[in-house]
């Protein structure tokens, strides 16, 4: 039904720690995993599911571990490589031996790199691009553990993936960072957690807040003779402990809407959707009953208030605390909240809205000499609103050099490791239009690789505003002790996956 074993591997595919849940898969099978991964990668047929005979590996990569502090590098287009190499460098530094690194789908292209530490500060790399180069500088990098679950049955694949992500989340909350060292440093707790997270392949408690109540880093807490029962694990309401007390009872509600946009090169909108989330920060005593009222169109139609301004929520997802059947019946969102931060619900709307920030761009490439870029940005939202922290990233060829910029507002910066120009505008009022021009030189010898055409990306945040027009009408808080509690609401709209293709 689910996973037979879970492994956490280091970058070379060596198991850091593993837990065999069912005993129906030989633990040595994991040795086949890495060769398989490498082989599939070379074939360009990498998928999150690999199989070797009757054993299936479902794997995910915990990838946000790279933090690079690079100094100067002469070949910018191998930046991706050098970052990867640096990841290996930390390992190989002391050992001075060849090792293999793997690039897969991190936005740096795919390939395999071989690296040799030549001296303390020099690394020789040979890769798919078959060039030799050296990098100087200091790197602070961590390795990427892979988390792999194996199974020999017809397991529920999406369940396993969800579980793996949950596992990583729990580890991250326990150890701040999930990396080789942190796993070694805390191996006893990792074993304990693996024990609690899953039993015989069935996912168990995966809420780190609850786990932290009875699995602690300070092991002496539990040693003091008497057992402290983890009541929440066994409560009918498994997400909230009893006996919580606050002096001031408050709830903070954040309504956050992300706009996903995909525009093709000739300016027509292919995809425009709004993904909204309502996040709660709960400081309430006891076991409160909460009810949230939104201007939900279906609800308004049910109650005959269809004249009022309302929003049609297309797909709503709730935290496990919300009574789903109640919502299905009469659209009431009622729940007993967990303590502290959590995401109450998310919703999606695919109603077409005017793109909030519209970009027009002209990127002219004159082979062997220069690239000229002109970008026009227009705020297509209400004049009273202001978009903050606007960042427009415009792709440039990887071999471009000597940048020159001219902006009507804000500042532009060349980020060679990502092959983009980032134009930042601190505040961007609605209805305004700004311009940026950039000029790059190109080398006279062209490189061989064909490059993709990355899209223009936009980041922004518009406070006190929701695109959909959703509103919190009320938040009722009822607790048997009868205290008064205050709800606070904030609205914000931000960019999600906001891409405009370039020609």
């Amino acid at each position, binding site marked *: 039904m689910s996973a037979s074993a879970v492994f956490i591997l280091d970058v070379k595919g060596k198991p850091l720690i593993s837990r065999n849940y069912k005993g129906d898969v030989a633990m040595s099978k994991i040795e086949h995993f890495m060769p398989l991964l490498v082989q599939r990668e070379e074939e360009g047929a990498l998928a999150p599911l690999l199989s070797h005979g009757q054993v299936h590996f479902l794997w995910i990569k915990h990838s946000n571990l790279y933090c690079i502090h690079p100094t100067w590098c002469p070949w910018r287009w191998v930046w991706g490589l050098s970052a990867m190499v640096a990841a290996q460098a930390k390992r190989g530094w002391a050992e001075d031996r060849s090792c293999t690194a793997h690039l897969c789908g991190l936005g740096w292209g795919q390939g395999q790199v071989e690296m040799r530490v030549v001296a303390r500060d020099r690394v020789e790399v040979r890769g798919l691009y078959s060039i030799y180069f050296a990098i100087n500088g200091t790197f602070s990098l961590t390795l990427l553990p892979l988390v792999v679950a194996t199974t020999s*049955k017809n397991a*529920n694949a999406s369940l396993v993936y*969800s579980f793996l992500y949950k596992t990583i989340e729990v580890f991250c909350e326990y150890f701040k960072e999930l990396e080789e060292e942190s796993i070694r440093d805390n191996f006893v707790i990792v074993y304990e957690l693996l024990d609690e997270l899953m039993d*015989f392949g*069935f996912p168990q*408690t995966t809420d780190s807040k609850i786990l932290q109540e009875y699995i602690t880093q300070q092991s002496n807490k539990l040693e003091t003779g008497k057992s402290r029962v983890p009541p929440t694990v066994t409560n009918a309401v498994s997400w909230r402990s009893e006996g919580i007390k606050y002096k001031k009872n408050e709830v903070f509600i954040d309504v956050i809407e992300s706009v996903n946009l995909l525009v093709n090169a000739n300016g027509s909108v292919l995809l425009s959707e709004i993904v909204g989330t309502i996040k709660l920060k709960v400081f309430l005593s006891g076991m409160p009953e909460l009810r949230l009222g939104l201007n939900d169109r279906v609800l308004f139609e049910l109650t005959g208030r269809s004249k009022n301004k309302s929003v049609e929520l297309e797909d709503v997802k709730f935290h496990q605390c919300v009574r789903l059947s109640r919502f299905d019946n009469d659209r009431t969102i009622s729940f007993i909240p967990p303590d502290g931060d959590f995401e109450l619900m998310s919703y999606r709307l695919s109603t077409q809205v005017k793109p909030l920030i519209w970009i027009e761009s002209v990127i002219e490439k004159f082979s062997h000499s220069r690239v000229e870029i002109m970008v026009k940005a227009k705020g297509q939202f209400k004049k009273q609103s202001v978009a903050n922290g606007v960042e427009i990233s415009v792709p440039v060829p990887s071999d471009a050099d000597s940048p020159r910029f001219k902006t009507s507002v804000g500042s532009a910066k060349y980020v060679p490791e990502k092959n983009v120009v980032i134009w930042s505008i601190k505040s961007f009022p609605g209805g305004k239009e700004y311009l940026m021009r950039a000029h790059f030189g190109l080398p006279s010898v062209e490189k061989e690789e064909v490059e993709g055409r990355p899209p223009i990306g936009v980041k922004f945040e518009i406070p006190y505003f929701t695109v959909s027009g959703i509103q919190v009408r009320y938040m009722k808080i009822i607790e048997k002790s009868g205290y008064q509690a205050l709800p606070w609401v904030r609205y914000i709209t931000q960019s999600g996956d906001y891409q405009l293709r370039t020609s």
Partner: protein
Amino acid sequence: MTDSKYFTTNKKAEIFELKAELNNEKKEKRKEAVKKVIAVITVGKDVSSVFPDIVNCMQTDNLKLKKLVYLYLMNYAKSQPDMAIIAVNSFVKDCEDPNLLIRALAVRTMGCIWVDKITEYLSEPLLKCLEDEDPYVRKTAAVCVAKLHDINAQMVEDQGFLDSLWGLIADSNPMVVANAVAALSEISESHPNSNLLNLNTQNINKLRTALNKGQIFMLDCLSNYNPKNDRKAQSICERVTPQLSHANSAVVLSAVKVLMKFLELLSKDSDYYNMLLKKLAPPLVTLMSGESEVQYASLRNINLIVQKRPEILKQEIKVFFVKYNDPIYIKLEKLDIRIHLASQANIAQVLAELKEYATEVNVDFVRKAVWATGRCAIKVEQSAEHCVSTLLDLIKTKVNYVVQEVIVVRDIFRKYSNKYESIIATLCENLDLLDEPDARSAMIWILLESFLEGFHDENTQVQLTLLTELVQQMLNLATQDSDNPDLRERGYTYWALLSADPVKAKEVVLSEKPLISQETELIEPTALEELICHIGSLASVYHKPSNAFVEGSHGIHRKHLPIHHGSTDAGDSPVGTTTATNLEQPQVIPPQGDLLGSLLNLDLSLPVNVPQVSSMQMGPVDLLGGGLDSLVGQSFIPSSVPATFAPSPTPAVVRSGLNDLFALSTGIGMAPGGYVAPKAVWLPSVKAKGLEISGTFTHRQGHIYMEMNFTNKALQHRMDFGIHTPLAIHTPLMPNQSIDVSLPLNTLGPVMKMEPLNNLQVAVKNNIDVFYFSCLSPLNVLFVEDGKMEHQVFLATWKNIPNENELQFQIKECHLNADAVSSELQNNVYTIAKRNVEGQDILYQSLKLTNGIWILAELRMQPGNPNYTLSRKCRAPEVSQYIYQVHNSILKN
């Protein structure tokens, strides 16, 4: 100080040191030592030798230490079962510990000790823990039942653990309920026959009320239930739909699975049905915002859903637009789904996108995009022109790998002949770019095809030259210069065909090509249904049937979508339509790999069955007819006793190969019966891409039958399979399904002598390829019923046959007496007389073959001696050898 220090201290002589430390007086020291041991295990070294010392540390009130010790036990108990027994006492004691964490820990660990001996000690504490006051212990105990079942299933069933599990489903705690359901379904999955999880109404009600608690297992479990009517189905659907709003994508997928299954049961006209369809789309779209692995699993499932019910997502095609930073596996999957969703309404948008993708960097993706463009041309007829012009633009880019994908153009040609000839010029310009075999053969096909179309307009001389060049040269090249047996064989086939009967040859080679269907690359309907029943699981991600996975070590149970029995017509049920669609639907494009196949095989028709030619091309598959093979020289050919085309009493095409010995008609129908050899595998699945054929021969009522059993051993689902004329199996053959076929054989027509004489060559064709095999038909099927000779005639004939025609054989190791032998041989071998000479039993026997040859035999048996002597006299001595084989095999059975 962090725990990583434990990894560095492990140097030489550590085992000795560890032992010492483990026996240290101080608690703290012991704990440190156990940590070190665990660290050593983590690194992957063997520390099984400290087992007794670890067991000593078990008696502790320190929870953390206890956990580590138990961890150690789990690792090594299996390799040291005797030692593990020592630990049993401690387990039993811990199960009654006042600390619930320790109770739960003990229960959890003892299930993970895969030692059979230990289980009997544990059943009692486990039963107690199942009724523990604390839900944390109960939930752990519930899982432990499943673990125990894995080790000792009998015990679990005998001691009433299953009832306890059913009891726990009504538990007040959601975790307990979830684990109980999970355990139950795990147990039932590994024992499909034991019917443990009998989903009766009462239990289903229990599950339904528990639905809000542990959703995934509950939903998976519910999906195995087959409600009796649509009202019941609807009430379950009503309970399940709220789960579509769950934040966990796995829950959503499981809910979708239940709904997809029960949709089959609902009446199509009901409002509820349509509302449900509408409710399914938004959650599926939202799945696309998950992590890429989850997205991948979801996409693979959506791919199935789209094939089954395209109406659900037909409005949502924009969700499957590819984003720049999508991993390649997601890009490819999205592309696939979009081909399924492409329609007249959205084709312009789809094509614009595809064109965009064709200029991307990733070669695989680009190729798939080009290919997809071609598929769209076939799928959306109205926009074919648009698609073709898009393709042309792409070809003009002259990018090598783009041009290679012109394979799709071939399919477009097949679908719309005479329409887009203008592409050919462009293609020719790029001829040098084609270096892949598939692309080249596609190109040759396109060129020849367009060339031959104008064939009749050319003058005779050109025609003749062409013909000679093509046929002569090619055949010469193929048969003489080639090293490839397949090529040579086909060359000879054509050659023989041409020299024997040019008219038929023409029919064979130039017959109409089957149409290209618009629905391409679809999963075969029954396979699709099964996959739908497994939404969310690995099977649905691989698109492989679930029995491709190890389902325990037990039997396989297949799932099917239920069939709606409501007011709507039978056509609704997918199973019911299968046959019909197979007959009517045009041929699906064969895999790209076998161009030769598509060039030649598909067009083959059975030359002798002229009246049937037209109908043959309709059918999905035809048995590569006997006529063709017979020209090449084969012995038996399945006759075309019309199985599907009843009213056409076609001339029998079957010939027997025993020179002209058998070329006589069979005679009178007589008593049935006769020895039937057990089925032997004639065509192993390895050789025939998963198709396994086993068979035998029988003789019934004066006719010879070839009993064949077709089994699909392949994991592919598209194993649409059928024998056409003379025999049709129109039902698609599901993986691992088999079909029994009885093929009447006939012994008319011209014959050729084969070596060995009873060799029968058979060709079978399905939608994958044509497979040849040969089998030895035992001669006894040719024995006719009127083979009993008169006494006197026997004697006279015996004398008449010259002595050099007498052959002697030994039948060894046969323990039958004379009477038993004669009754064993009762299948058309007749005992004329029995004598006892010098303590020997002598049997005189006669038999007659279908072509009228008499064979006389004398069988000498000595009681106590298992070796018999068989003397045969026959006018055609070459047959004798085979008769002996028959005797031998019958008597030995």
